[in-house]
Each structure stands twice: as structure tokens, then as C-alpha cells.
């Protein structure tokens, strides 16, 4: 749920990066953190295990500057991808404004992608959201690896409603900013519609 503080003239939106474990959700946030001006980003919080697997969430607040005098802030979250952290994953979706699904392009991860997508649909529903109506972007990550599925085939299998699809190599930053821009644009357009 977008929070508009008219007194402080601030707009706060929440975007969640969803997807299977080890798909590159945290890497997306790390790259965004790296390329954002120091004065426009908050601290990046990672609640991770000792082996750097996300345990609860990663959180990165960024300030995108002003839009018609309203300071526009996006709070970016990732969820833990591992299947058994479903209870935590569900909590992070509370009050979400937009979702990025980070798919792992490797052939052997197709089932994990499909399972995570079903899980996203189900968990959104529990919070009263419909995947078909919420701002949503699909990112096909790890396009630099040798054993990947063709982008067209992966899109055919994972695209749910004609959402924008971006090929990405998050470790190099390719496609990361484009993905964020696309979901942010959808969130703001949606907000304008509902205003």
C-alpha cells in the first residue's frame, strides 16, 4: 500500500523481488545500491544466514528525487528464495505495491521457477492481491551461463499477463536498472490511476 505523507510531501512505495533461491534477487539490490548516489540511498539491510543465503529479507530504501514536488521513495525488499522459508516470504508481501520476479534462466531451475511463481500467486492472494492486477515485471537472470533456456521459451513458460520481460546478468548489472525502472513506472502509473 503506497503511503503518501502530504505533510512531509513524501511518496513511499514498496517493491518486492521474488523468485527461487539463488536466483539473484539480493544481487539485484546490491547492484542498485552500488550505482545509487550516496545521498539518495539508505543503509542496505541483509538478514542472511552465515552462508549469505537470505534468511528473512534484504531491504534497501532509495530516494528517486521529486515528482511534482513529492519526494519519491522506493523501499526495495527481497524475500528468502528457499522453499522452507515460506512463512517469512509471506510476511514481506504485506503492503506490497509492485513485484519483480527474478527467474533463474538455467534449465535445471525451471521447476524451481515455476514452483516459486505458483507460491507468489498464492501468497499474494493471502494478502488480498491478484497477480494479474498488481504492477509486475519478469526478469530472466543469469543470461551469461552456458546451460540456459532460450529467452523466448522461458518467457512463454513464465510470463503470466504480458508483463515486461528483461534479460539480465545481475552480477554485472545488466538489465537490473531497466527492471527496476519498469516496475517503478507501473507502480506510479497505477497510483495515478487510483488517485
Amino acid at each position, binding site marked *: 500500500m503506497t503511503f503518501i505523507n502530504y505533510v512531509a510531501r513524501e511518496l513511499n512505495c514498496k517493491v518486492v523481488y521474488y523468485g527461487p533461491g539463488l536466483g539473484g534477487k539480493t544481487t539485484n539490490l546490491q547492484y542498485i545500491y552500488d550505482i545509487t548516489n550516496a545521498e539518495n540511498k539508505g543503509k542496505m539491510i541483509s538478514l542472511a544466514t552465515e552462508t549469505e543465503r537470505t534468511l528473512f529479507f534484504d531491504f534497501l530504501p532509495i530516494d528517486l528525487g521529486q515528482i511534482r514536488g513529492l519526494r519519491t521513495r522506493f523501499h526495495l525488499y527481497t524475500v528468502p528464495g528457499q522453499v522452507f522459508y515460506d512463512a517469512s516470504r509471506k510476511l514481506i508481501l504485506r*503492503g506490497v505495491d509492485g513485484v519483480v520476479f527474478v527467474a533463474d534462466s538455467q534449465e535445471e531451475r525451471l521447476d524451481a521457477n515455476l514452483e516459486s511463481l505458483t507460491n507468489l500467486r498464492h501468497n499474494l492472494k493471502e494478502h488480498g492481491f491478484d497477480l494479474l492486477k498488481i504492477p509486475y515485471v519478469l526478469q530472466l537472470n543469469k543470461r551469461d551461463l552456458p546451460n540456459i533456456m532460450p529467452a523466448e521459451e522461458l518467457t512463454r513458460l513464465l510470463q503470466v499477463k504480458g508483463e515486461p520481460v528483461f534479460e539480465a546478468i545481475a552480477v554485472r548489472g545488466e538489465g537490473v536498472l531497466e527492471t527496476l525502472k519498469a516496475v517503478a513506472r507501473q507502480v506510479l502509473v497505477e497510483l495515478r490511476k487510483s488517485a
Partner: protein
Amino acid sequence: MNLNNLILRETEYVRIKSVLMMTQKDLRADLALLIDRNGQQIAFEGPTYAIDLTSLASLAAANLAATDGLAQLVGEPEFSILYHQGKHRSIHISDVAHKFSLVLVFDESVSLGMVRLRVKRATAYLEEIFRGCLRKIEGNSGAPRESTQAKSPIDFSDDDIEMLFWVMKPKIQK
């Protein structure tokens, strides 16, 4: 109290700030912060220069959400209070109207009993403010919009949206 369509105007915001200020001063707390259940800051009072409020709000909300999950697992409707005791500083998080949370950060000179007393009072005041907001919304429903109301700042163009993101400088790919 259904607070899903709550609109806080400046008068209520000022009253919320005064409740937070009173609580913060009474307890000589480092911080009195009101957040919503999604982790957005509503208002705060206190010398907070050393605390990252955005992170605190996000973590407190996550902490509460996790605690709600724990409560459901053991068959409780909720655990309405969270208390973290540190060596020098402690954090007390409590529910306000099932929609907001009051976060207090205070030092070892304040007793937990005193904190609970002041939180109870502050919660009653805050809930009264929110009830007042709801009465106003219900009273205004169906009434024409005030002619003095400014044009919504949400009325931005596609170009305005494109202007964002200048704060990010993509690295040059090799």
C-alpha cells in the same frame, strides 16, 4: 476500528506529534516513533541523530509481522507487545489500533513499568485521534470536495516519471 482508508491531515499529525513528544519527554526516551504495520514512518520525536529511522521502521514492522506469525502458530490472536532489553538501550514496540505500532527507544534509567504506563496512556490518546479521523471521513462521505483543495500531486505525467532515476549512474560495461 477499520483504518484502511485513513487520511491523516495536518491537524491530526500535529496532535500525534504532541502525544509522541509528551511520551518521549516523560520517559526521557531517545525516540518515540509511530509507524504503520508495513514499516512506513508516520511521525517521531526525540534526539534521533544516531538512529537510522527508515531501517528501524522496516525492521520493527518485520519483527512485529514475525511475532504475529508466532502468535498464530501457538494459537494466540496476537502478542501485542515486544520488548528487547539491551545493556544500555532497550526497545519497546506496541500495537496501536491494529494498524500502527509505537516504537520507543530508551536507556537503562527508565523502568519497564513506567514505560508500560506511559505507553498505555499514549495508545489511548492515539486511538482517540484515529477515531476522530474516521468520524471526519464518515461525516464527509458523499459531500462535495472542498473547493480550496489543491490539485492532487499524484497527477503527474509520463515525462515526470521518466525524469526520475537520474540519481542512479549505471557502471560502464566492459
